[in-house]
């Protein structure tokens, strides 16, 4: 396997409803990523892009539709799609293009436009549930989040206040991100007093619905060193898929994520992740998910994570900054693009270019993760400098 570097990154603003089409959003992010490393489309040999359900757009085979916005015109272009895990999975996918020796450069582009679905994209999640044994019960995706959160809190004795602290931390951190959908600080009371959606989930426990796109440029080592003096290396990638019989496994612990992260850590030569990882960007569509994922990522002992949160361990200047980007809760959640935003964040953080969000010291390793489908899939990448 060849060494693969991230050499550029760009993204759009994340907003509730973008005027731009999915293709235009993809173009903006991709052009920005190319400009960030002074490359042009003719320097790019392949494209690995990702976008979540076609149903959001009402455009079937969205991959083909999106391709030219992603720079995929007349190139070997492949789309990956694993629901919410797509954003980091697309990086693993692009990594293979180069690590295999097949290509020297690859664009990784993820886009989501959720606002076209009327009146609300949420309705389309009905169709991810089992069509015969679950859909007649008219489930919403909120059900399984709420039930997973309830099971998780109940297993370890965590409280709603504990979970809400993550929403406060990430949302207020996200204000520092230039792409963020938000500009107002929230308090613990705001979160706890926000609309009850599905006990134990309140409105502000959840990330928003968003439109947006993110792109990164990958290059083989010899190209990466020529393009930039600060390449960020993809040290390891991993992913894992559990069964779609989601009700038959205990939701308090994401076993598939443990396996995905071990795959990535093994590749990166990381033996003690909690000590060796300097920055974590766990997937945080709901506040509790950030903590649930820190445990699955082996970055916090199960049941002790709230204690670490309360001690400031996960703050921007803590021992292990968690979601310094602001995460999905603080920047926004255009599904596939949100995962790639985490890749871009590690790129900027490890290069010392994250502005107000910059974690102190000289971070060497970061891990990012995305998650999706019926509580069953995770993708993980370890980046290092």
């Amino acid at each position: 396997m060849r060494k693969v570097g991230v050499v550029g990154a760009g993204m759009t603003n994340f907003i509730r409803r973008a005027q731009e089409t999915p293709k235009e959003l993809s173009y903006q992010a991709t052009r920005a990523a190319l400009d960030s490393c002074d490359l042009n489309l003719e320097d790019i040999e392949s494209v690995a892009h990702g976008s979540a359900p076609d149903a959001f757009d009402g455009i079937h085979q969205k991959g083909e539709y999106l391709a030219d916005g992603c720079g995929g015109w007349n190139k070997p272009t492949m789309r990956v799609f694993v629901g919410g895990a797509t954003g980091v999975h697309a990086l693993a996918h692009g990594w293979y293009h180069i690590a295999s020796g097949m290509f020297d450069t690859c664009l990784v582009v993820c886009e989501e436009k959720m606002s076209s679905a009327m009146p609300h994209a949420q309705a389309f999640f009905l169709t991810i549930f089992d069509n015969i044994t679950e859909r007649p019960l008219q489930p919403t995706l909120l059900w399984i989040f709420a039930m997973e959160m309830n099971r998780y809190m109940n297993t370890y004795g965590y409280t709603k206040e504990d979970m809400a602290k993550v929403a406060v931390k990430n949302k207020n951190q996200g204000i520092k991100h230039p792409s963020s959908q938000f500009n107002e600080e929230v308090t613990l009371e705001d979160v706890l007093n926000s609309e009850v959606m599905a006990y134990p989930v309140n409105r502000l426990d959840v990330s928003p619905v968003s439109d947006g796109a993110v792109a990164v440029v990958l290059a083989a080592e010899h190209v990466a060193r020529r393009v930039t003096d600060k390449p960020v290396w993809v040290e390891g990638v991993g992913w894992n898929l559990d069964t779609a019989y989601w009700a038959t496994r205990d939701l308090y612990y994401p076993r598939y994520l443990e396996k995905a992260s071990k795959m990535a850590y093994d590749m990166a030569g990381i033996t003690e992740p909690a000590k060796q990882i300097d920055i974590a960007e766990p997937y945080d569509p709901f506040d509790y998910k950030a903590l649930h994922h820190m445990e699955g990522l082996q970055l916090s002992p199960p049941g002790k994570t709230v204690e670490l949160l309360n001690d400031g361990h996960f703050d921007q200047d803590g021992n292990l900054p968690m979601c310094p980007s602001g995460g999905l809760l603080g920047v926004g959640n255009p599904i596939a693009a949100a995962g790639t935003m985490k890749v871009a964040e590690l790129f900027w953080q490890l290069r010392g270019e994250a502005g107000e969000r910059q974690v102190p010291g000289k971070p060497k390793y970061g891990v990012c993760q995305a998650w999706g489908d019926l509580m069953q899939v995770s993708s993980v990448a370890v980046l290092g400098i």
Partner: protein
Amino acid sequence: MDHTEFVRGGTGLSGKDVEQNKIFTVDDALNCRYTWDTGVAIGRYLEELKNGKIIAKKCNKCRRIMLPPRMFCELCYCPSDDWVYVEDTGVVNTFSVCQVNWDATRVEPGQNPHLPAVIEIDGATQGMGILHLLGEVETDKIFIGMKVKAVWKPAEERTGAITDIKYFKPY
């Protein structure tokens, strides 16, 4: 160097821009219809639900009694073996009290919230839960570990569907 110059585009619109036709939009409504075959395992499951019974399938290799029943064991990756009736009682593994409908509209004031739960059915291998609903219970009295029993539709109203069980209630 700061990365902020590499944030571009994503021009925000408000709902009003759309409602008041300040921008061009095009509307469409897809109407998709399907007729799904239920398959061998779920077909039998539904047939037994119509009879007022819950049936599972056993894998003789890992010895799991699997619910919903399946024709192959996904762990051992071999054909599953015996059909096994299980109880119509179980234990709440987790639950929610949901004020949001499937299409993101809200439950109207005065209407009952949705009460989804994962129920570990007695007689199936521990941890083999199914998604269903709770009923005949005060929302603040529901707890993880609560014992529940199926409330069936009257026999003449059953159609061979998961909704032949109306909900599970405490007992």
